[in-house]
């Protein structure tokens, strides 16, 4: 069952935009020869990987009577439903109906399969609705493909609506307050003027009067997948190589849950690269984790109707712009009659 255009705009906004790519889980969540169940955009899916590493993503719904295929058995190049044994391959085609050989289900592609790509240790999938099954063009974030950049993925699961997770990223000012007690964002002015600067692929939201001190700017990039790029200075203890960057993405799991993906990257080579990687694994990763936990604690504590009763000011322009963009797109993707 593909995502439906008859879902309301509110449903789409709550559960994640369609007709684009989203990250789903880290690559290592599904081993060669393994199955992995997951939820994304409010639907249940099955990741299926062959022994040679080839990955498929299927709707977690048997074409016979709807039992979850994720309860079934991995047969190497196909999965067998536990309920009555119907076998489905990675493209979603029924290869065998053991209870009734020759049954006309055999050979039919009856299970939705999503296009997948793997980048920087994460699985991306294209979530088309029933009018847009063909994958949108995807340009991967260059920090994840540039060999001069060294990146580590951090993945975490938050009980937070996906839009709060994105809004948090388009709100650099929280760095100087929420993360004031941290190894990287203790410095910088707690007052700032911001501006929006449009780009080909999205927009910058940035301080006009401070750069390179705290979390001072962010670029929203819409390149087939939505991601943010930002940069935060390291203290001298992190050694040579300058600031670290973050590529951030979010997987809308359902209306209340989000998978967050943060690649911490640095432009370093030679011994500086090796030294940064050693320090990151040994000491820095844990400090970054503590900063991320500050975000999680705050966002999970936000009331469900937080965005209904607000008094916004100049620092919130990046968030306002993001909402307008996402709400507009959700309305476009819904063919349901608008609710009154």
């Amino acid at each position: 069952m593909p995502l439906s255009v008859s879902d309301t705009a509110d449903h789409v906004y709550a559960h994640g935009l369609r007709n684009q790519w989203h990250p789903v889980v880290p690559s290592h969540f599904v081993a060669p020869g393994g199955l992995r169940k997951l939820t994304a955009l409010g639907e249940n899916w099955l990741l299926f990987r062959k022994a040679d590493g080839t990955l498929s993503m299927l709707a977690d719904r048997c074409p016979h009577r709807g039992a979850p295929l994720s309860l079934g058995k991995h047969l190497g190049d196909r999965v067998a439903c536990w309920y009555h044994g119907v076998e489905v391959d990675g493209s979603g085609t029924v290869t065998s109906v053991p209870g009734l050989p020759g049954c006309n289900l055999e050979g039919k592609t009856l299970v939705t399969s999503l296009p997948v790509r793997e980048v920087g240790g994460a699985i991306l999938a294209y979530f088309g609705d029933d009018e847009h099954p063909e994958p949108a063009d995807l340009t991967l974030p260059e920090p994840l493909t540039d060999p001069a950049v060294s990146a580590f993925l951090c993945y975490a699961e938050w009980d937070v609506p996906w839009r709060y997770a994105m809004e948090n990223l388009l709100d650099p000012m929280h760095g100087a307050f929420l993360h004031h007690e941290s190894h990287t964002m203790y410095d910088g002015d707690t007052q700032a003027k911001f501006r929006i600067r449009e780009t080909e692929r999205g927009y910058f939201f940035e301080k006009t009067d401070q750069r390179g001190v705290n979390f001072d700017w962010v670029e929203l990039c819409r390149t087939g997948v939505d991601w943010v790029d930002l940069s935060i200075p390291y203290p001298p203890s992190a050694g040579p190589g300058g600031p670290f960057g973050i590529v951030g993405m979010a997987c809308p799991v359902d209306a209340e849950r989000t998978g967050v993906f943060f690649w911490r990257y640095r432009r370093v080579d030679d011994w500086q690269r090796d030294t940064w990687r050693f320090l990151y694994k040994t000491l820095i990763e844990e400090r970054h984790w503590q900063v991320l936990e500050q975000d999680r604690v705050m966002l999970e504590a936000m009331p469900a109707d937080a965005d209904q009763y607000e008094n916004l000011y100049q620092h919130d322009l990046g968030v306002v712009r993001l909402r307008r963009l996402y709400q507009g797109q959700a309305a476009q993707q819904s063919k349901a009659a608008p609710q009154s």
Partner: protein
Amino acid sequence: MTTEATMWPYLTPHQTRDHEPTPYELKLARTLEEIFTHDGHELADVVGGLNARQVRTPSGEPWTEETFRTEMHRLGA
């Protein structure tokens, strides 16, 4: 193979290590941070800083630029 248990939420602070750091690795990392904070960011600062602090290579020798590069490559690759 069947489905792995799907545990929500996944909240794992360390996702990049393949082992718990050894006492030697921890000491080396902490000393490097101290050197970067107080001595400088050049390779010569690092090697000089380690030797001045009597932090030795695993085989007990003073560090050289070459042994430091090789060791970082082993630990950070």
